[in-house]
């Protein structure tokens, strides 16, 4: 094996040289970069929030004045997030972000449990009884099953074309 390959492999999977403790200057620089990134993210999020809030206030709010309040609340929250990112990117903003992620996660879990069961009850349960009545159950439950001489499925007659490899079924 060439030394180039060996070097490349080591750099890819065992980069122990880079894993050394950063110097205080490097650590300080990394902290500054991290804060700048958070600040940028917070400002972008605030801009998106303000745009949506403006849409509510000036768009929907123009026809239905009650919706203006949603715009005002949205703009306040967006401004708060933007300010927190500018003032305390690694402190307050990072905490807000973490909090929102946790809430978003649980909202997602909640919605999953809210929307997935109806599909189960309205689809799987009735179809199961329909299929069973039509004697169509892929799980083949009869045990023991003297009516069958073998449980192997014969595929020898099947054409296995090269293009079958390119599809997901």
């Amino acid at each position: 094996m060439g030394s180039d390959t060996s070097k490349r492999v080591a750099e890819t999977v065992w980069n122990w040289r880079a894993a050394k403790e950063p110097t205080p200057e490097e650590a300080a620089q990394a902290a500054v970069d991290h804060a700048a990134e958070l600040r940028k993210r917070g400002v972008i999020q605030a801009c998106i929030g303000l745009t949506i809030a403006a849409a509510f206030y000036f768009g929907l709010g123009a026809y239905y004045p009650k919706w203006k309040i949603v715009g005002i609340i949205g703009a306040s929250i967006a401004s708060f997030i933007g300010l927190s990112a500018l003032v305390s990117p690694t402190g307050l903003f990072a905490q807000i972000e973490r909090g929102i992620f946790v809430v978003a996660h649980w909202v997602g879990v909640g919605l999953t449990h809210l929307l997935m069961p109806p599909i189960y009850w309205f689809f799987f349960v009735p179809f199961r009884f329909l299929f069973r009545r039509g004697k169509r159950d892929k799980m083949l439950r009869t045990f023991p099953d003297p009516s069958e001489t073998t449980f192997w499925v014969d595929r020898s007659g099947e054409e296995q074309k090269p293009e079958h490899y390119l599809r997901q079924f």
Partner: protein
Amino acid sequence: MGKLKHSGGLIGEFCKFAMENKIYWIVPLILVLLFVAVVVIAGTGATPFIYTLF
């Protein structure tokens, strides 16, 4: 948004699969599940979507 780009292909393949194997019930089910998937997916997939609501 990578999934959005691939969703047409995925639904198309499901349709072909259903036609070839005569498993027609799978098409509406998949459409409903994929539709629901956009809204409900817990964790990373849903987070940015919900985040923009704030």
